[in-house]
């Protein structure tokens, strides 16, 4: 108990200083909180501290990645053959689809040229590995192993093989934090693939559910509708699948219907994601990552050419 006695000796002289120190630190935290909440001035500080956490993340990730490496290297011949045949079948299928796709793509480019709209240039993509997911139940954050050194920027879109995963909110030097579309603070401008109806998909805090809170009761939407990004928020390029509508509840006495959708991407199972460098994106734009910018961008739909032509309002030409 040597440690105890040396520690308690100075208690009487230390106690007032303890309270004072708490007051100072509390004031400092509140200043930090306010500054961090209002503006993004602290990005450099976050980046610096984030760089010190990076080795810890690698250490934490090491057992998982070693296990995967061992499993890959010791996989049986039969398993490999099975996987090869599965992949071959998948490749044939994709190739068959791709044949039609190239034809469609050139047709699309021709039609767009006739309409005088900006042709959609193919987006550039880079694969990033996920280091950790959702360390806090109220913030769906994932950390990826690519940072500003690889050209990652704030507001960049992240997708997986099935659909949109989220967007980058803090591009560190070596690793970046991204927010998932299921984060309760995240809102994403989408449109119904079937008829071009535009709305906003808001995260709920559950991995398998998005809310569409701003649809009127008479909106043309039904179960199984595919929602794709509309590209109006500026952060996401248009046309990537986001979610499938899984329930539409029309409330006659309320102004809005209650619509929920299931994200197309496997938000809680992904190991790798793809970062998109869209042709329209220039690094640094869309830095205000959160719902505010997305919501603010929604009414000004004229500012994005191409999206207007792609989304006719269904009632307009019938009557």
């Amino acid at each position, binding site marked *: 108990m040597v440690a*105890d006695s040396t520690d308690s000796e100075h208690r009487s002289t230390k106690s007032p200083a*303890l309270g004072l120190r708490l007051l100072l630190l*509390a004031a400092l*935290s509140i200043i930090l*909180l306010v500054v961090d909440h209002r503006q993004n001035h602290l990005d450099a500080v976050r980046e610096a501290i984030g760089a010190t*956490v990076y080795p810890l993340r690698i250490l934490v990730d090491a057992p998982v990645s070693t296990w995967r490496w061992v499993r890959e290297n010791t996989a049986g011949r039969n398993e490999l053959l099975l996987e090869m045949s599965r992949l071959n079948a998948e490749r044939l299928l994709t190739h068959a689809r791709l044949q039609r796709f190239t034809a469609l793509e050139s047709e699309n480019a021709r039609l767009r040229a006739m309409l005088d709209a900006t042709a959609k240039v193919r987006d550039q993509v880079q694969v990033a590995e996920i280091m*950790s997911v959702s360390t806090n139940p109220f913030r769906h954050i994932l950390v990826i192993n690519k940072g500003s050194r690889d050209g990652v920027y704030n507001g960049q879109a992240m997708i997986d093989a099935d659909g949109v995963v989220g967007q980058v909110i803090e591009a560190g030097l070596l690793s970046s934090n991204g927010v998932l579309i299921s984060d309760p603070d995240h809102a994403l401008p989408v449109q119904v693939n079937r008829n071009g109806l535009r709305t906003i998909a808001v995260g709920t805090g559950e991995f398998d559910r998005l809310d569409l809170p701003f649809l009127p009761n008479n909106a043309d939407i039904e179960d199984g509708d595919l929602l794709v990004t509309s590209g109006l928020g500026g952060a996401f390029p248009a046309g990537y699948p986001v979610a499938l509508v899984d329930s539409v509840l029309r409330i006659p006495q309320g102004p809005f219907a209650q619509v929920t959708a299931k994200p197309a991407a496997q938000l809680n199972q992904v190991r790798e994601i793809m970062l998109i460098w869209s042709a329209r994106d220039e690094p640094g734009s869309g830095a205000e990552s959160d719902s505010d910018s997305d919501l603010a961008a929604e009414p000004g739909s004229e500012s994005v050419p191409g999206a207007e032509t792609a989304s006719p309002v269904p009632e307009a030409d019938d009557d």
Partner: protein
Amino acid sequence: MIKVGASRRLPVVICIIMALMLAIVPMPAWASSYRPDWLALTLIYWSISMPRTYSVGTAWIVGIVVDVAHGTLLGQHALALAFITYLTAKFHLQLRVFPALQMIATVFALLAIYQFILFWINGVAGTYADAVAYWGPVVSGTVLWPFISHIFSGIRYRLARSF
């Protein structure tokens, strides 16, 4: 104090780093809402047993690192950790002689205060939060406290014997 500083600090710093690693280790979705506040538990223990070396300052710096690692508002965990460490450092003499059961109840209260500060800052900042889910870490942390304090007291006696 200064002479033995380094050898005495290293094991505790390693404890804190281990707790930080446990705090960022990926967990399945159902379990992550019951992830105990490893850092809060670690700091509670060491600020009771060595309040002169580890108190509000250490807690605040660790909290800032947690804020960066979790992507929360900068200063949120720092404020919460500094506050509970202030309480434990202030009353460390009383807390040291508490019987085990009373100590568990105190840890429960401290963790509840910790989560309340986080909840409160989330509320002020306008982050959506389900109030019930905040109880998960409090309960799991309280359940784990006897084991954690047992491990740490092993480390502490080994430290005390080494002088």
